[in-house]
């Protein structure tokens, strides 16, 4: 590829860089405008001076700089309009009217998510106009509503909250990029439709297509086909979803250039068989692409593919040679101008990285393989797979910590099958439009292809180490990796390129491996992760052992915190192994997230109280399959974890495991005491008063430096007597903001304060990180970034 073939590439890069720099530039938009004007003047002067090389060079630099400034101006957040709902003074519960911007998502039987474009709200009985977008969660059976409908609903509005952990996903920032500053929740019964459900035609087509697919195919296959054709993967069962990720072929479930190319080539194939002229065919194909893009919706990958497809068709119409890289750059420029926030969207990044990798790397790799005697078709297929995989690897690691090792091989089989299934699926839908009888014949044939596709994916996913998880790479590693890839097409040309590429590659690998081999700082680290309402505490010994106590909440109706928070945190540490996982008791806010940990990490031992209640089935099954050594702990046991001693204080083992607990399951929580040098920590699970009394009566050593406050600061935990005996200097409460139990309670907080403890709360402070070298204790509140230091008293301890 030569640079003059893609003149838009530097421009789109400069524009994207401008968007990256927007937060810094936003402080002085006026100065930025002046700077842009000056640069433009300079460039114009340089260009006017004539065709001397230095003048042209200066004009080019000025042009790029102006583009950068334009990107920064476009990327800067616009001030909120005066009537924005986030500016309004609202009652705690307010009735809001607005239009549904998307189809509602039912992500659990009684939970529905709406995207609401607000047009007004009620201040007592006065209707006030307002603007802005809300993300709404409704609890209960929601009446059927659809995109475009105007509704009225009673909501409690609040600022969005994410889990604030090191390296964690910034949910509020994500919503802000979508233009959502407030989230609302309410009862489904309060939802009333103001207009009839008359969606625009693309929505109707999509609904009809999903219904037609569902009517002709069994459930799982229907969900797969809807994903292939329409990108609708909501119906896909979680195990299939996981298999597609493991096999590295998840991209076929997103609508992308793959679908667009298939649609266009199908149109060409059929129309040319009918003897229609090439130009008329190109126009028809263009119309089909636009219609398709409208139906499947506005994800970045769809828009990119459609823009590029239309450009290629236009080139065909104008008998011009098409430049793919230039088309890609134009698509990027168009998309970023329209929606600058998309630059941070994983879908945008994956789509553009994969396409760029294919365009840039495939010719060189194909030539290299063909020179070694590979048949042309195989060389091209492998080169496309390798090129895309190499380019998306950093993006996948940053956002998902995933690297599919089987992906390159799996794509060779899965992509052709998916192509057949997608083409047949589109044909079947067209036929279903005309005749149900004919569709009844085509869908069974399609079903066979879909089952074969699933079987191929399943087989690829079943290969050991099909997918590995690595920490997100740093900027240096990404840069060196990109440089190595950029040099690939020039490898044969000059000698220095080989050594430069090798040096970049080695640097990238070394930078990626460094976190694994980095020597420790000799400190004990304890991280109370912000997992909302629930517990997840990671203890890391200076020798490298790790103990995870509880894994946050998960369950049928909520976010899997283990999957979204705990596992990514461990991957980014980086950790592939957890020496011991302790589940204090089987309540879902403690045990639920451990399912993900037990399936995704090598777990040495599972410490439990031996009692598994309803809701913990998935975790129990994961525990049985994980191969971890399971130990049922009772009071009095002592376990060495590296150089730290873990002592079990509860349960006392008098209650048979198959008998219900007389004072509640919480009182059977594992209570663990950890001692390391002058530092001591008491982890109490959900222990309440009866359990605390039992622990005190056992005369076990309870005096500690740090107390994990029992039961998220419940009124019935942390009694005065217990605090008098433990005398903690630091108390950490793992609790979710605005939880329905109103934890932590003022009573418990007052008792902790009276006992003289410094209180840290994950709902306000985000993750709370304790680090100690035995002489001092550093306490980090992650949300605010403040670090406090506490000198340890060597005389302390039980």
């Amino acid at each position, binding site marked *: 590829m030569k640079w003059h073939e893609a003149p838009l590439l530097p421009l789109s890069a400069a524009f994207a860089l401008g968007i990256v720099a927007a937060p810094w530039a936003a402080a002085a938009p006026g100065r930025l405008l002046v700077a842009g004007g000056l640069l433009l003047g300079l460039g114009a002067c340089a260009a006017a001076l004539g065709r001397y090389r230095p003048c042209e060079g200066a004009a080019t630099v000025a042009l790029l700089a102006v583009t950068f400034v334009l990107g920064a101006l476009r990327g800067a957040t616009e001030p909120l309009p005066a009537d924005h709902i986030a500016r309004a003074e609202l009652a705690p519960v307010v009735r809001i009217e607005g239009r549904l911007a998307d189809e509602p998502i039912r992500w659990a039987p009684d939970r529905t998510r709406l995207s609401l474009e607000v047009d007004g709200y009620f201040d007592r009985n006065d209707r006030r106009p307002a603007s802005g977008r809300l993300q709404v969660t409704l609890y209960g059976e929601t009446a059927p509503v659809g995109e475009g409908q105007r509704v009225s609903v009673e909501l409690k509005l609040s600022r969005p909250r994410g889990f604030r952990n090191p390296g964690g996903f910034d949910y509020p920032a994500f919503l802000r990029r979508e233009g959502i500053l407030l989230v609302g929740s309410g009862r489904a019964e309060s939802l009333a439709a103001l207009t009839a459900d008359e969606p625009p035609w693309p929505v109707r087509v999509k609904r009809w297509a999903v219904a037609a697919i569902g009517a002709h195919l*069994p*459930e*799982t*296959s229907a969900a797969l086909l809807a994903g292939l054709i329409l990108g609708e993967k909501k119906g896909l*069962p979680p*195990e*299939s979803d996981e*298999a597609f990720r493991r096999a590295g072929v998840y991209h076929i479930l997103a609508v992308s250039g793959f679908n667009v190319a298939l649609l266009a080539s199908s149109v060409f*194939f*059929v129309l*040319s*068989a*009918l*003897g229609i002229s090439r130009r008329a065919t190109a126009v028809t194909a263009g119309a089909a692409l636009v219609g398709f893009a409208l139906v499947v919706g506005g994800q970045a990958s769809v828009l990119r593919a459609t823009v590029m497809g239309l450009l290629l068709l236009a080139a065909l119409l104008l008998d011009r040679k098409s430049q793919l890289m230039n088309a890609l750059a134009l698509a990027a420029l168009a998309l970023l101008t329209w929606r600058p926030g998309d630059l941070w969207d994983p879908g945008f990044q994956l789509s553009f990285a994969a396409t760029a990798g294919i365009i840039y790397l495939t010719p060189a790799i194909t030539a290299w393989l063909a020179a070694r005697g590979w048949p042309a078709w195989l060389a091209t297929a492998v080169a496309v797979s390798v090129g895309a995989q190499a380019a998306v690897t950093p993006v996948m690691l940053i956002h998902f910590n995933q690297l599919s090792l089987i992906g390159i091989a799996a794509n060779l089989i899965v992509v052709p099958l998916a192509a057949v299934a997608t083409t*047949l699926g589109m*044909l079947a839908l067209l036929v279903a439009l005309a005749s149900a009888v004919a569709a*009844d*014949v*085509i*869908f*069974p*044939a*399609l*079903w*066979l292809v879909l*089952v074969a596709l*699933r*079987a191929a994916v*399943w087989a690829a996913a079943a290969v050991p180490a099909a997918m590995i998880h690595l920490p997100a790479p740093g900027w240096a590693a990404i840069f060196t990796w990109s440089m190595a890839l950029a040099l690939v097409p020039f490898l044969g040309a000059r000698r220095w390129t080989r050594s430069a590429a090798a040096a970049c590659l080695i640097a990238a690998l070394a930078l990626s491996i460094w976190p694994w081999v980095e020597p420790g700082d000799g400190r004990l680290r304890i991280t109370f992760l912000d997992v909302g309402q629930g517990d997840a505490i990671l203890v890391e010994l200076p020798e490298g052992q790790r103990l995870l106590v509880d894994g946050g909440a998960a369950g049928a109706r909520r976010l899997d915190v283990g999957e979204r928070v705990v596992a990514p945190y461990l991957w980014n540490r980086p950790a592939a192994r957890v020496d011991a996982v302790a589940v204090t008791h089987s309540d879902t806010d403690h045990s639920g997230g451990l399912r993900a940990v037990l399936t995704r990490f090598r777990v040495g031992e599972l410490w*439990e109280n*031996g*009692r*598994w*209640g*309803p*809701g*913990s*089935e*998935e975790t*129990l*099954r994961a525990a049985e399959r994980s191969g971890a050594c*399971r*130990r*049922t*702990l*009772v009071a009095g046991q002592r376990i060495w974890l590296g150089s730290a001693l873990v002592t079990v204080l509860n*349960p006392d*083992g*008098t209650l*048979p*495991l*198959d*008998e*219900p*607990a*007389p004072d509640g*399951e919480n009182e059977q929580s594992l209570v663990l005491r950890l001692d390391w040098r002058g530092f001591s920590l008491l982890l109490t699970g959900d222990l309440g008063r009866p359990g605390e009394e039992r622990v005190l009566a056992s005369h076990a050593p309870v005096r500690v430096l740090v107390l994990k406050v029992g039961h998220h600061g419940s009124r019935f935990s942390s009694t005065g007597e217990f605090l008098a005996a433990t005398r903690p200097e630091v108390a950490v409460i793992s609790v979710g903001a605005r939880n329905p139990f109103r934890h932590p309670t003022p009573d418990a907080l007052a008792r902790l304060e009276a006992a003289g403890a410094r209180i840290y709360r994950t709902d306000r402070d985000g993750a709370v990180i304790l680090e100690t070298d035995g002489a001092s204790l550093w306490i980090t509140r992650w949300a605010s970034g403040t670090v406090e230091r506490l000198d340890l008293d060597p005389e302390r301890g039980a």
Partner: protein
Amino acid sequence: MSYSHPQLKLLLLLAALFLAGLGVREWRMGFPDAAERLERFDREDPPPPIPPAPRLRAAPRWAAAARPEAPAPPRAVPPPRARAPATPPVPIADPRPLDLNRASAEEISRLPGVGPSLARRIVEERDRRGRFESADGLRGILGMGPKKLAALREHVTVGE
């Protein structure tokens, strides 16, 4: 009459498609079980649910397991290898005998061998007579045989 090459390709593909579709449809109708198994080959059944533990009263009189009428529901998942000192599950019998003249029907129904309906008849009999003079007063109530009465004697008393 002759077809052009692209036409032949398209028509042959369509014919193959319809043939395959008809074949698969026939097979699915003939062997619906096999087709269903094939469709669900990669699906996983959810784990068996763990039933909720029976709610206990504050002062357990008769452990639920001791009642033949209402055995504790069997745990779907046996607890894993217990390291705990394995004391056999003994029914926790309240040492104090139950006062027949004060007890409610619900309390009486927790006595061994006494169900809710018998307890209701005992209370009706007590209301009719005013009070029981001794445990022998239970004799003659429908459903109270000599064996059951003998078994109950040590668990009941009569207050004034």
